[in-house]
């Protein structure tokens, strides 16, 4: 049986699947094969792929081992998704300490990519809230890793892209909430200067901040967007319900469905749907954190050829002009899509050696795959990121060069000492070649 697709549906690979169903069952590692854990396949490029190798699929490892409702300590198998975790913990008054923009990721994947979210400036990355995990090495050894035990492997496996072995279970410190609601406010900004103003002014009072950015409009509309900020609702009694409406994209969209005009129309409508400068509302956490999860299989709108996601962080030293240079390049290409996101990271350090987030502003957006033209664009953005002293996010990447990777992650050599000899990935072979 073979398979292998990431969320961006690029590159196309072929791997053997080895389902891991039970914690106690040993895995027979064969010396001539290369292994990689595969959770939900929600990373975009090739870091969850292992062409010609074996993917250890973990969706069967989805049991909770213990959940202390008093202290909010959750120990669960690594294939459990944040979606399932939330289903159990929210009614008990707890929330995940950090969540990425989709809840359909596994806990193992959240650790291996050291994911971040809208609260990076207050809580840092996911890895900061991991109390311990078990790492199964190809030697058959099972190592308990925590800030106290096997510290080096703990630090290497957080943001370790699954290369240090298979995380079988993990223990996470949850955070208390009063209810499922988020008190949110969205504020329109007309340019990047105003974005930085609002962002700076929101850091103290808002746990969650993020901005949607119009990445196709030029002229006076250049750099406009909507800043969203929020806090967990403090009210005791208020009830918030998630929408029960479930949408799905049933088939691959034809190539012409997404073009310059439909994307331009979307961006204008999205910006203009909010008439007032700022709007406050109480919303359920699902639309606040996971707007795209409302449409299952949304990656199909990009058709069979898939798409690329680009996410970089630009350091404060690069100045605000670096961001506008980059955005100008994207707008000029006419290739931008409707899902551009902007956020300022904080300076809380992650235990992860290879963690991506670092102080600065992060920009994230999609590009439909139009072949060579898009490839050039991706390479250009990689080069600009390097030029500005930034870094690119492996979980979203299919393009960064080996040379740039080493620049973005200077401790890659130290990290590579902890890679399990039987583990590898398409991404790792690409950037370490």
């Amino acid at each position: 049986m073979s398979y292998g697709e990431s969320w961006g549906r690029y590159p196309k690979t072929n791997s053997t699947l080895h389902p891991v169903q039970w914690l106690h069952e040993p895995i027979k590692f064969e010396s001539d094969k290369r292994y990689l854990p595969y959770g939900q396949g929600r990373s975009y490029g090739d870091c969850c792929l292992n062409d010609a190798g074996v993917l250890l699929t973990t969706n069967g490892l989805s049991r909770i081992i213990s959940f202390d409702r008093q202290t909010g300590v959750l120990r669960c198998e690594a294939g459990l998704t944040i979606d399932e975790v939330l289903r159990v913990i929210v009614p008990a008054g707890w929330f995940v300490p950090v969540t990425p923009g989709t809840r359909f990721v596994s806990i193992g994947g959240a650790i291996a990519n050291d994911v971040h979210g809208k609260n990076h400036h207050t809580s840092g990355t996911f890895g900061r809230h991991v109390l311990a995990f078990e790492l199964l090495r190809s030697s058959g050894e099972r190592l308990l890793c925590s800030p106290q035990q096997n510290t080096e492997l703990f630090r290497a496996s957080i943001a370790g892209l699954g290369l240090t072995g298979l995380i079988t279970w993990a223990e996470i410190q949850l955070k208390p909430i009063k209810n499922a609601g988020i008190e949110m406010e969205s504020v329109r900004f007309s340019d990047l200067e105003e974005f930085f103003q609002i962002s700076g002014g929101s850091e103290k009072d808002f746990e969650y901040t993020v901005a949607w950015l119009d990445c196709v409009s030029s002229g006076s509309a250049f750099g406009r967007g909507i800043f969203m900020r929020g806090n967990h609702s403090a009210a005791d009694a208020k009830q918030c319900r998630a929408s029960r409406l479930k949408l799905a994209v049933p088939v691959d969209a034809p190539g012409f469905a997404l073009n310059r005009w439909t994307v331009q129309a979307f961006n204008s409508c999205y910006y203009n749907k909010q008439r007032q400068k700022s709007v406050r509302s109480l919303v359920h956490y699902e639309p606040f954190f996971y707007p795209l999860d409302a449409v299952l299989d949304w990656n199909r709108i990009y058709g069979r050829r898939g798409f690329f996601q680009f996410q970089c962080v630009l350091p404060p030293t690069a100045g605000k002009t670096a961001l506008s240079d980059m955005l100008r390049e994207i707008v000029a290409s006419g290739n931008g899509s409707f899902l551009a996101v902007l956020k300022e990271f904080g300076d809380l350090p992650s235990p992860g050696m290879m963690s991506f987030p670092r102080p600065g502003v992060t920009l994230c957006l999609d590009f439909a795959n139009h072949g060579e033209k898009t490839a050039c664009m991706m390479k250009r953005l990689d080069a600009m990121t390097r030029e500005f002293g930034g870094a690119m996010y492996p979980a979203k990447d299919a393009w960064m060069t080996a040379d740039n990777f080493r620049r973005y992650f200077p401790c890659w050599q130290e990290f590579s000492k902890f890679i399990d000899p039987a583990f590898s990935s398409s991404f790792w072979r690409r950037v370490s070649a």
Partner: protein
Amino acid sequence: MQHVLIIGATSGMAMEVAKLYAERKCRLFLVARNSEKLAAVESDLKARGAESVAAQVVNLDETDKHPALVAAARDFLGQLDVVLIAHGVFPEQAKCESDYRLTESVLRTNLLSPISLCTHLANVMQAQGGGTLAVISSVAGDRGRQSNYVYGSSKAGLSAFLSGLRARLAPRGVNVITIKPGFVDTAMTAAIKKGPLFASAANAAAGIVRAIDARRSIAYVPWFWWGIMLIIKHIPEVIFKRLKF
């Protein structure tokens, strides 16, 4: 609060069904063969909010152990509101063709074992005058196909047994449901290539619980298999015997 007995509790579909009952804060009694797997499922259900969970390790092929098992479940649960029988094996058809012993063991696990359990459970539930007995059969039992007729015949026998039992228990307020899953992505089907007809175990489980709540008689899971099997059942034998599937 519902009192739920799940037999074959470490099977892919049963685990998902049990999660749904745990979220409803039910009391659960689990039965399976492998103690390590059973312990993992038990702690999962406790963490998900089940009122209480007990588990017993039994090799369900040993039908002489069934009376004691049913008694233990009733002692723990007090009453049997919902019973799900979910254990089964999916053999390689080709191996069965050259090995009758294998065929016999498939019939023991998939047919005789649930029939024995149903016999004991039916009497307990008849006496209590209510409850739902849901048993996982299969769409494969609707017609024997050359690619898996040994498995299919075990499920066909089970479906026929349940149909009669349903009629017997209906006047006593006990509902018997024949669950007929199509392709479901579980450990049992790990060796089969996944196509668009495959449903996730979680989706199948939601369908099973809906059928139990609605006190249905026969439930295809997912529902569209009803249409597919309607067509397959009506293909004339002259044509059917030439089909390779």
